C-alpha cells in the first residue's frame, strides 16, 4: 500500500547533524580557531568582508569556519547577519589620499613621487608549491617597515593627471545628493555611477573578473592602464549632528585601483583620458582591478560609445553580479519541482498521443 | 518649558511596539483589501488632542525615518511633535514630497490632483492619505464597488466635499496612478484604495 512520504523534519535534523560533523572533520585533529583563520587565511577573510559588505575580521572568520571554507556560503552568512542590524548612520567618504600605505604601484609611470612601494604581494613569487609549509616552522620575520611617509609625498596619480587636465573629472551631482543604499533599497534602472559602483563592490569577484577579462579580449576594449593601485589603512570618520565636526571611529584596510582608459572627446570638449574605479575591503587587488575595468565599461552609454558587449550592459552586469542571488537561484533547482514537472509531463503525453492518433488516421 | 518637560509632555506611543504595530497594520491591510469594511483599533494610546486613535495608531505603525509626512494646516503642533518624536518621520513641507498626509478634517482635504500620484512606470510612488472624519454612523451614504468588494458595499461619512466623489472618480481615469485613502473616525478605520469606484 502506498504511504505518503513523511519525515521531512527528521530528515532535516539528520542532515544538519551530518553537516556539523562533516564541517568539524576528524575530531582528533585540533579545531580551527577564529584567530587562525583571521591571521592565516587573511585573503579569504578580506574577500568575505568585501562581498559580505561588513568590515569585521572576526565575524568573517567565523563565517568561513561555519561555511567550511566555502567563500560564497560565508558571504551569505555575513550578509544575512548584517541585514537586520540597526543602521546607526553613515560615515564620511574615506580619503584614500591620506592612506597609510602598505603598497602602492603604478604601471603608467616608471617613477613618480612616492615611488613604487611593492609591499606584500604574490606578484613576484614563483608559483611553486612550498612543501616547507606542510610543517609548522619558525614564523618568518618581516623586514623593517620603511619610515612612515607623508601622504603629501605620495600624491595620487589621478590627481597628477587631473592637474594637467588630462583626465576626466568626476564631480558629485548638483547638491551632492546621497547615493542610493543598495543594502536597503532595490536597484532601479537606469542606475547612476555611484549605484553601479556600490553593486560592483559587493559583486562576485569571479563574475567581475570574467567580465573585466572579456573587455581586454575585445568585448568592448577600453585600452586600460593601471594608473595606481593602493593598499593600506584609512580612517573612518563620522560627523554627529550634535558635534558639527568629524570624529574618527577607527580605521580599516582597503585596496583601491584607478584605471586610466581610452580618451574621449567631442566637438565641444578636448579629448581626455577616461577612468575606471575599484575599491574593496582588505587586500583584494584582483577584485579592485576587475571592478575598475567593468566600471569603465558600464560608462559606455554616458560616454557616447556603442554598447556592443555584455560588460557594457548595466542590466546584464548589475542584475547578475550578486553571488547570493545567483547561487540561490541556481541552487533552487534542487527544490521539489514535481508539480510543475507533472504539468509538463501531462502536456507532453497529451501532445504525443494526439500526434500518434493523427498519424494513425493519416495512414 | 525646557527640553525635559517638553519630552515628558509628549504622550506615550505603543505600549508594545512590535505587537501593536503588527495588529494595527493587519487592521489597515484588512480595510484596504475590503473597501467599505469598518475596522477597529482596540488599543489604548496616550494621543494628543486632535489626533484620532485610528489615525495615530496607523501612522505610528507605518511611519519612520524613511517616510515624509504632510500635515494639513489645522493639525495641532502637539500632534506634529508627537508623530515626529515617536516615528522619526521627516516633515513634508510641500505636498509633492509627501509619502503620507494627515488631514485634520474633510474641509482641509486638498484637491486629490495636488497629491503625488505616481507614474505609469511607478504608480506605487504615491501618497497615502489619512483623513479624519467625525463618524461612520451619519452623513452621506456612498456606494462602493471594485477590487476587494463582492458586488457592492457602502459607507456613511459626514462632511466630505460635494465635489469629492466627482474628483475621486475623475482621478480614476489616470489609473494605475492615483492616491490611496484611509478614513478614520475615533478608533474606526475604512480603506479606499484608488481602484474603488464610488457611485455618484
Amino acid at each position, binding site marked *: *500500500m*502506498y*504511504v*505518503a512520504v*513523511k*519525515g*521531512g523534519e527528521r530528515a532535516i535534523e539528520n542532515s544538519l547533524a551530518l553537516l556539523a560533523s562533516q564541517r568539524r572533520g576528524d575530531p582528533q585533529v585540533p579545531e580551527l580557531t577564529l584567530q587562525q583563520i583571521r591571521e592565516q587565511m587573511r585573503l579569504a577573510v578580506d574577500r568575505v568582508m568585501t562581498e559580505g559588505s561588513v568590515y569585521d575580521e572576526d565575524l568573517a572568520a567565523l563565517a568561513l569556519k561555519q561555511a567550511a571554507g566555502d567563500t560564497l556560503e560565508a558571504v551569505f552568512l555575513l550578509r544575512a547577519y*548584517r*541585514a*537586520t542590524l540597526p543602521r546607526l548612520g553613515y560615515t564620511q567618504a574615506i580619503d584614500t589620499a591620506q592612506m597609510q600605505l602598505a603598497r602602492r604601484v603604478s604601471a603608467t609611470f616608471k617613477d613618480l613621487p612616492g615611488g613604487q612601494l611593492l609591499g606584500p604581494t604574490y606578484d613576484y613569487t614563483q608559483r611553486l608549491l612550498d612543501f616547507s609549509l606542510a610543517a609548522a616552522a619558525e614564523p618568518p620575520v618581516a623586514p623593517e617597515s620603511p619610515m612612515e611617509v607623508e601622504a603629501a609625498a605620495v600624491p595620487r596619480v589621478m590627481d597628477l593627471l587631473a592637474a594637467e587636465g588630462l583626465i576626466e573629472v568626476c564631480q558629485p551631482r548638483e547638491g551632492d545628493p546621497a547615493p542610493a543604499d543598495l543594502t*536597503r533599497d*532595490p536597484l*532601479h*534602472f537606469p542606475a547612476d555611477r555611484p549605484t553601479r559602483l556600490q553593486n560592483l563592490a559587493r559583486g562576485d569577484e569571479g563574475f567581475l573578473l570574467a567580465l573585466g577579462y572579456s573587455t581586454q579580449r575585445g568585448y568592448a576594449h577600453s585600452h586600460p592602464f593601471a594608473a595606481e593601485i593602493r593598499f593600506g589603512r584609512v580612517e573612518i570618520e563620522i560627523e554627529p549632528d550634535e558635534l558639527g565636526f568629524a570624529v574618527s571611529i577607527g580605521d580599516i584596510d582597503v585596496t583601491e585601483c584607478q584605471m586610466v582608459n581610452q580618451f574621449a572627446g567631442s566637438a565641444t570638449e578636448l579629448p581626455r583620458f577616461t577612468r575606471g574605479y575599484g575599491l574593496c575591503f582588505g587586500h583584494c587587488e584582483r577584485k579592485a582591478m576587475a571592478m575598475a575595468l567593468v566600471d569603465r565599461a558600464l560608462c559606455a552609454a554616458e560616454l557616447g560609445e556603442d554598447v556592443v558587449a555584455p560588460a557594457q550592459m548595466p*542590466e546584464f552586469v548589475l*542584475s547578475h553580479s550578486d553571488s*547570493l542571488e545567483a547561487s*540561490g537561484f541556481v*541552487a*533552487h533547482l534542487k*527544490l*521539489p*519541482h*514535481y*508539480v*510543475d514537472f*507533472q*504539468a*509538463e*509531463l*501531462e*502536456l507532453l503525453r497529451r501532445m504525443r498521443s494526439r500526434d500518434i492518433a493523427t498519424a494513425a488516421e493519416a495512414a | 518649558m525646557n527640553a525635559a518637560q517638553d519630552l515628558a509632555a509628549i504622550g506615550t506611543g505603543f505600549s508594545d511596539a*512590535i*505587537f501593536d*504595530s*503588527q495588529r494595527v*497594520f*493587519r487592521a*489597515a*491591510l484588512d480595510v484596504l*483589501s*475590503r473597501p467599505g469594511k469598518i475596522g477597529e483599533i482596540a488599543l489604548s494610546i496616550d494621543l494628543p488632542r486632535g489626533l484620532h486613535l485610528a489615525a495615530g495608531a496607523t501612522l505610528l*505603525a*507605518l511611519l*519612520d525615518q*524613511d*517616510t515624509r509626512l504632510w500635515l494639513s494646516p489645522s493639525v495641532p503642533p502637539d500632534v506634529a511633535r508627537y508623530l515626529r518624536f515617536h516615528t522619526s518621520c521627516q516633515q513634508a513641507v510641500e505636498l509633492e514630497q509627501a509619502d503620507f498626509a494627515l488631514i485634520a478634517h474633510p474641509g482641509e482635504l486638498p484637491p486629490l490632483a495636488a497629491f503625488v500620484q505616481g*507614474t*505609469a*512606470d511607478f*504608480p*506605487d510612488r504615491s501618497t*497615502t492619505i489619512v483623513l479624519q472624519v467625525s463618524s461612520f454612523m451619519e452623513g452621506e451614504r456612498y456606494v462602493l464597488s471594485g*477590487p*476587494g468588494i*463582492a458586488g457592492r458595499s457602502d459607507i456613511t461619512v459626514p462632511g466630505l466635499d460635494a465635489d469629492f466623489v466627482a474628483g475621486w472618480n475623475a482621478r480614476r481615469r489616470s489609473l*494605475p496612478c492615483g492616491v490611496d485613502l484611509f478614513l478614520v473616525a475615533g478608533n474606526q478605520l475604512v480603506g479606499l*484604495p*484608488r*481602484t474603488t469606484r464610488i457611485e455618484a
Partner: protein
Amino acid sequence: MNAPDRSALAPAAYASTWETNFNFAYLDERSKRMIRRAILKAVAIPGYQVPFGSREMPLPYGWGTGGIQVTASIIGPDDVLKVIDQGADDTVNAVNIRRFFQRTTGVRTTESTAAATVIQTRHRIPEVPLSAHQILVYQVPVPEPLQRLEPREVETRRMHGLSEYGLMHVKFYEDIARYGHIVTTYDYPVMVDGRYLMSPSPIPAFDNPKMHMNPALQLFGAGREKRIYAVPPHTAVESLAFDDYPFAPQRWDAVCAICAAADSFLDEVITDDRGGRMHVCSDTDYCRTRQAAAP
C-alpha cells in the same frame, strides 16, 4: 490503510515565547514597516509589482525569501500558520520554513488549510476554498511574467506602464501555430482587474481559476527579484487565452488512489521499475481530510 494522523489536524500548542535572540519574525521593525508599506501599495494596485528593499534572509534567495518576508511582516500572535510546498506540508522546503517561523515567532502552526489564518505556499493553491479571514502568501521565483520573452526590466516596466502585452499574445499565437495549442502548463500568465499582466507564480495552470474572485487576500513575494504584488479579495483574475482557443488546464483520466478525489491536482508516483504508476492528491491536507471523512 493507515489511520489518519489526527494530531496533525489540531494546531500545535501555542508557544508564548519565541527564541528571543531573534527579532520577532526575524526582521527588524524598520524592515517590516518598509515591507508593510509596499504591501499596502500592492493591494491598492492589483497585479502591479511593487519594488521593495528585500533583505538577505537566513534562507537563500530563490528558496522563498520573498514569501518569508511577506509572512514575517504580516504575522502576529493571533495567527495560525500553514506552510506548503508542492501542496504538501512535509516536503523539505515547507518543513524548513515552518521551523523558521516557529523559532522566530512561536506562532501556532497547522497542517489544516481550514484552521490556518496565514498560508504560505510554494507552487500550489490549496484545494479547499479559502475564506475571508485567510491570507495566502505565494513564494514567487520570477515575478515578471514577460521576463523569459524580454529580460530587460527597463523594457518590461514600460510595457506594464503602457499595458502593452503584445509580446505575450505573440508567444501564445506561435505556440498555437506550432503545436496546435498553448503549451504553457504552469506559471500561466493572468490579467488582474483587467489591467496588469501578472505571474501567478509557478502554480500549475490547473490552479489558476482558484485565484479569480477569491474571498481571501492573495499576496506575492519575490525576494531575489525584490518585488511584492497582490490580488485583493473578490478581484477578477483571468488566464490569457484567445476566443477560439480558450484556457484549458490539466485534466487526468485517473482519480486519487488514496481518497478517490476526481477534482484535485494529482501527483504521479512511480511504484516500480516496470512503468507502474499511481496518482495521489498533491494537496496532502485535502487528501487526508477526505480520507478521514470517508465512511
